[in-house]
């Protein structure tokens, strides 16, 4: 792969386009994500990092890996802002993934509150990566609010249902001048590959790995799928016939000048 093909988020460069999501946490999962999937960014829920000595989860994070604390548990913008500030105090750096959820059943993000939190935190110098429901207007608002990326969900978190929102993610990729990172719902490497072919800048996954039979093999599969999808995107996808056959005689063949 082209060595100059870097993922750039808020001025920081990354070689890997796989990001480990939070949620299901274990030392084995982090090891596999770094070693086998090549992850350079690992998400960590601040609420999980908020532990005492017995299991200081920050100790699990290998050196050289960028920590992406998220604000899970926040029910509105104010709570997200407070959690982000706490992450900074805990020594988690300036990256923050905004998650604002007002729904405990599907854990769908609240776009409006997410825009508000992004605005506040971007002003405070955070590299803000907002998790959102793929809506073009919200994505534009997030960009204007100072987001470093936009992270649309592929399908409900933990569902492993893949790119249920594909058409809308494609619109974001086409219209938004920020890296679009597909987050939540990616259940298989083939789905990650598809997102990358579409032009996504990176893919985030957790449950798909955490619940796999062979953790490290699945991690490696994700790495390969993401690399394959990225290569396909960079090479320019060939003609894809989506419907019917193509006319061998062009309809516009009659035009003379």
């Amino acid at each position: 792969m082209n060595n100059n093909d870097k993922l750039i988020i808020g001025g920081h460069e990354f070689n890997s386009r796989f990001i480990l999501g939070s949620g299901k946490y274990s030392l084995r999962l982090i090891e596999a994500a770094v070693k086998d999937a090549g992850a350079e960014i690992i998400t960590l829920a601040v609420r999980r990092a908020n532990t005492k000595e017995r299991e200081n989860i920050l100790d699990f994070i290998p050196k050289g890996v960028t920590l992406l604390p998220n604000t899970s548990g926040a029910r509105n913008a104010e709570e997200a802002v407070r959690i982000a500030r706490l992450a900074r105090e805990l020594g988690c750096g300036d990256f923050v993934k905004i998650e604002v959820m007002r729904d405990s059943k599907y854990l769908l993000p609240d776009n409006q509150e997410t825009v508000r939190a992004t605005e506040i935190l971007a002003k405070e110098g955070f590299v803000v990566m907002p998790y959102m429901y793929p809506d073009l207007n919200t994505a534009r608002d997030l960009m204007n609010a100072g987001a470093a990326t936009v992270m649309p969900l592929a399908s409900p978190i933990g569902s492993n249902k893949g790119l249920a929102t594909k058409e809308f993610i494609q619109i974001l990729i086409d219209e938004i001048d920020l890296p679009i990172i597909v987050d939540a719902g990616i259940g298989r490497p083939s789905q990650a590959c598809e997102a990358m072919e579409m032009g996504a800048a990176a893919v985030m996954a957790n449950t798909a790995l955490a619940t796999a039979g062979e953790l490290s093999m699945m991690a490696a599969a994700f790495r390969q799928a993401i690399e394959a999808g990225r290569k396909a995107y960079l090479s320019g996808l060939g003609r894809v016939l989506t419907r019917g056959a193509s006319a061998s005689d062009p309809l516009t063949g009659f035009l003379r000048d």
Partner: protein
Amino acid sequence: MENNFFIDSEYLSEEALEKKHRLETDPSSRKNHMEYLPGMEKIESDVCENVMAHMKSYDYGKYTPEDVKAALEHENCTVEDFKALLSPAAEPFLEQMAQRARTETGKHFGNTVYMFTPLYIANYCENYCVYCGFNCYNHIKRMKLTYEQIEKEMKIIAESGMEEILILTGESRSQSSVKYIGEACKLARKYFRMVGLEIYPVNTDEYKYLHECGADYVTVFQETYDSDKYEQLHLLGHKRVWPYRFDAQERALRGGMRGVAFSALLGLSDFRKDALASALHVYFLQRKYPYAEMSLSCPRLRPIINNDKINPLDVHEKQLCQILCAYRIFLPFVGITVSSRESAEFRNGIVKIAATKVSAGVSTGIGDHEAKYSGKESDGMSGDEQFEIDDGRSLDKMYKDIENEGLQPVLNDYLYV
């Protein structure tokens, strides 16, 4: 078969005994259990009505193996599917239900199992609930911890590594006032990341106060959702008021609590109807308060001091497992807590299927953590237990056992904001 709950203590005066017997035998001597007492807040809500309509019409005998198979095939479990899964027709499908439950648990919780411990700070009680060790006619050693004693207990528990605590009291407003409980919450915030409460139901403004003191999760067991049966088991005291108890979780959420927990005490009444009502209580409240976190418990009746014969009757481990699998399939996003009332073997097995939270290092007595945790001789200054526990594992032992099952023990996943 029925439990015999009526035990006369030799320490009761003749007058007290006479009143006790009258309450037990003459329904007209008891207060109306559907009528609010002065000071009890009444909120407008249709949740109870919805739950009761389903419970009353639930005829679990009508479900067939085909209904159960269909329920297991559906991607989303409907209320009707859930009713089939709770029915006797589902009993032969327990293994399939467990497989499905495990998949759902994995999707929502991964391999994590949360841990907590209860801390009883007082066992005074003004109610006569016939199955409970704390009931006001039961002759037990009563105690209420001072703030110094509470802090001492908390320190000992915190030193064991525990980060989540559930504060409990007997149901006595006069002995364990809201202010007293609030002070305990403030102390708990110093030593723990997560503070839950299991106390008598209170009004919205009192929940708000307790939330401001640091509590963020409220557990109220309805005991039984069959209000007629409830009336026969809760003979005296404010706990007798069934509808005020039903609305407790809703008041707690209105008071600002992050989450609420629910349960029936299995073995008191028709367990299939109680399980249905418990889950629907969650279901309807979640629709109304979608941001709230919710969890279900599944306590079965246990022996108490002075009555070691109490048992959960027809709710055997298989039935309990069926209920928990059905809960998980119907409400995949809710927490499920399994307490130390159950054996170590059962808890080790059920965390692999449906449960997401277990207690460890448990005492249901008052002020005895030092003796229990360090093996130090008790100074005799402790209060008696609410019920006998089964699984006495310490935090360390539990932590290791969970890891050995291939799961990830989690001491905290919570932030007070």
